[in-house]
């Protein structure tokens, strides 16, 4: 009965309209800003230019920050994979309490990440908990200066986004049939070989999904470097913020923002080519 279907179809318009006006349209507006030159006088015609994008690569200052942001986000992603893989594996394959533990692991998502970042300020500061502990254990003679450095930004990002990696990893590991690994061992593979050739390769979906959820927000983060970082840990997000402050250059800031958006869209498209986006819905369903 297609009358119901065609009537139902009309229901998409309010949401779709909202999405176009308040999400896609603003994106197009900054895209226009990004490809036009600033016109200080009102009389001048607006000029289309790629100058704003070129500036990002030409000015050494910006290039350094861009590369640094990529480095920090990449490190965050790598460490989050390393840290969470064993946990995801344990949850998926070695315990009966995985459902409960996953719920426990959801708790940090519900707590504001500014607060979680604040905790790291307490831990890392010069007379903070970590230094006190290390001094007390006599591992060090004078307090380490970790806070306001790239290290502390990295620690904050890893801490904030690692739980994001556990969930998709867990979901992908859960789907792997144990008998596959047994079969490969029966056929003569060593334990390690069977793990890497079977389990690890099949869990790549989870690793990539987790990478999207960790890498993209890290790259666009600005609160964590602003709170935990110093002058050597300014990231793209902080530059973008500056451009939209009191004395900013909107066109340049828009170019940065568009670059960030394009990079994340490219990653998402790359992922959907490989695995299809449905896997993200499925992963989300775990939460």
């Amino acid at each position, binding site marked *: 009965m297609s009358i119901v279907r065609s009537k139902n179809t009309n229901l998409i318009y309010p949401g779709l309209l*909202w999405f176009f006006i308040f999400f896609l349209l603003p994106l197009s507006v900054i895209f226009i800003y990004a490809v036009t030159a600033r016109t200080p006088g009102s009389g001048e015609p607006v000029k289309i230019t790629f100058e704003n994008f070129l500036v990002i690569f030409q000015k050494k200052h910006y290039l350094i920050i861009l590369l640094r942001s990529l480095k920090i986000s990449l490190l965050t992603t790598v460490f989050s994979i390393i840290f969470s893989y064993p946990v995801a594996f344990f949850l998926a394959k070695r315990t009966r309490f995985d459902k409960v533990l996953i719920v426990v692991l959801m708790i940090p998502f519900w707590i504001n990440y500014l607060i979680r970042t604040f905790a790291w300020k307490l831990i890392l500061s010069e007379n903070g908990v970590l230094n006190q502990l290390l001094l007390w254990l006599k591992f060090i003679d004078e307090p380490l200066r970790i806070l306001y450095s790239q290290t502390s930004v990295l620690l904050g990002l890893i801490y904030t986004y690692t739980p994001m990696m556990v969930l998709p990893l867990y979901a992908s590991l859960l789907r792997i049939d144990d008998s596959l690994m047994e079969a490969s061992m029966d056929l003569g593979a060593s334990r390690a070989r069977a793990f890497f050739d079977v389990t690890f390769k099949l869990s790549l979906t989870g690793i990539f999904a987790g990478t999207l959820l960790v890498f993209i927000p890290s790259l*666009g983060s600005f609160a964590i470097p602003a709170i935990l970082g110093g002058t050597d840990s300014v990231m793209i997000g902080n530059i973008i913020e500056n451009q939209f402050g009191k004395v900013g250059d909107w066109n340049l800031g828009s170019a940065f923002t568009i670059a960030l958006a394009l990079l994340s869209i490219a990653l998402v498209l790359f992922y959907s080519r490989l695995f299809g986006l449905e896997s993200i819905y499925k992963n989300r369903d775990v939460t």
Partner: protein
Amino acid sequence: MNNKKPVLLTIYTTLFFLYIFVPIILIFIFAWNSGEGYSFPLKGFTWQWFAEFFNDQLAKKAIVNSLIIAVSSATISTVLAFFLSLGLLRGRIRRSGIFLTLLLLPILMPSLTIGISALVFFRTVNIPLGIPIVIVSHVSISMSYVFIIFLGRIESLPLSFQEASIDLGASWLASIKDTVFPVLVPAVVAGWLFAFMISWNEFIVTYFLVGNNLTLPVYIFSQLRFGISPKVNVISVLITLFALSMLAVFLVSRKIYDRLLSGERM
């Protein structure tokens, strides 16, 4: 496979959970510690910081604003996402895959890009910064999440429900109100709570759009940027407890839903 107890893995996982939760516990401890510093040994028990927080008018204002924004944006985005998912999955859309991908963008893009583009857009069309546009932008973000929550539920809801009720004489509107909606109530609750928490915790987009007003995350950020006081711990404790109770409501409502479903099958 092997029945050996995975000792190392268990230890590692325990350490991992400690790593996730010890920082949060530390915040709690220092909320009741007297003395300004954040160091051990603790100096003594005090409610001083709580008193200071409750006398802070700015913080109160921030809480009220955050609540207004979270409630309104969650409500709007739940309604929109409900219609959207029903229309896309039970309507006559040929290439719904494109829409699904588009709707994932707000989730997968850094919220910074969403915040900046909203800022530029609203300034360009001369709409002043403030709470209304924060609400609007929060809807654009949370709608996608709620939409995904609905997708899963609607997939398990056959069109024949609606068709049957129309065959029996109901109008199209009534068929949605009386057959589709009741089945989806738990998803509506879950989606609303989820959208509420997204908005309640949202910082970046809010920071750019809120103008001279404060929301709780913006307030916390300003406190963190300019030196820290145990007052921040108190806020953190209160927010965390609030978040946990919301999570509990979320989980309980899902439990009830599962019960109802399995009850129907019996």
